[in-house]
């Protein structure tokens, strides 16, 4: 039996693939819905991707796949918690699919599937990302649909 955990989250957003791609890759935009985290990269395969939080580098990862505006994948290794440093990097993939509306008055719906995998069997990071992605992606959806991110109070 395969015990390595895998996290899959699907969300549907009233937006376009281009706007969603921009939301995932524009550091000013990520700051708004990702708990203040800036994601910095040139978003080409093999490039570095840096997560910066309150000025500190909290991730220093690598872009594995980049096919704008459909597919983005990078390594994922938090650097800001001592107890997690021993765990190898996992991998997160964003897939963007567009569905056109049934009627003419309506715009498009974009389905974003986030798959986070390659965790060790007893991963300490897996439970954290399982809680974290719904929070980040709910806020992303609200920001794209209403212009305001969710104000979390914790």
């Amino acid at each position: 039996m395969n015990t390595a955990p895998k996290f899959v989250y699907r969300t549907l957003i009233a937006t376009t693939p281009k706007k969603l791609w921009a939301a995932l890759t524009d550091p000013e935009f990520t700051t708004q819905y990702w708990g203040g985290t800036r994601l910095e990269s040139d978003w080409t395969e093999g490039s570095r991707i840096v997560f910066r939080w309150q000025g500190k580098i909290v991730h220093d990862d690598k872009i594995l796949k980049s096919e704008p505006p459909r597919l983005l994948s990078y390594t994922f290794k938090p650097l800001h918690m001592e107890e997690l440093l021993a765990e190898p990097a996992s991998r997160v993939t964003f897939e963007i699919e567009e569905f056109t509306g049934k009627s003419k008055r309506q715009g498009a719906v974009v389905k974003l599937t986030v798959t986070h995998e390659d965790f060790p069997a007893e991963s300490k990071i897996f439970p954290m990302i399982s809680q974290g992605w719904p929070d980040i992606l709910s806020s992303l959806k609200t920001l794209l649909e209403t212009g305001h991110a969710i104000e979390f109070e914790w």
Partner: protein
Amino acid sequence: MVNGKASDMNLDQFKPKTIYVTYIAATPDKVWQALTTADITKQFFFGRRIEIELQPGGAFRFWQPDGKLDVEGKVVVCDPPRKLAVTWRVMWIEEMRKLPECLVTYQIDDLGKVVRLTMTEAHQIELDEKMLEGGRRGWPVILNNLKTLLETGSPLPAFDFMGEAKPALDEMKEAARKFTEDA
């Protein structure tokens, strides 16, 4: 008694198989009302209208827009506006009707300006992963639609979900047919 749970039901036999969490900028009362009011469910739940007697043991059904029975069950936990659990038997797909019912629970947590809504689909039997795929595709559509409706006043633009989900639904029906034959 309005609050609490039906005493004749052992909930431990149901194991969670699909969990979906979403955060909604709304009050717990608004989320509860949306989940339990027919004129609101029809806007976000694939056009289905809910019929629910809000007390443990109460009847629960979803009706399709053309009047066909969609889902049938009973209220197990009713604790407004925090927790609602219902037994759930899929009636609109013939192959699914004979399966043991599952348990669907909505947990609504008030976090101040936002509500955390957790939907848990739990099963009392071991099922082929294929039989869970309908829910794993459907719940995100339903709950994202609910979130958009409550936050913007309108649901998401309608799209051809059934077309998109058809291969998975066909596999699910086939797995359900096999399960019923083997039983």
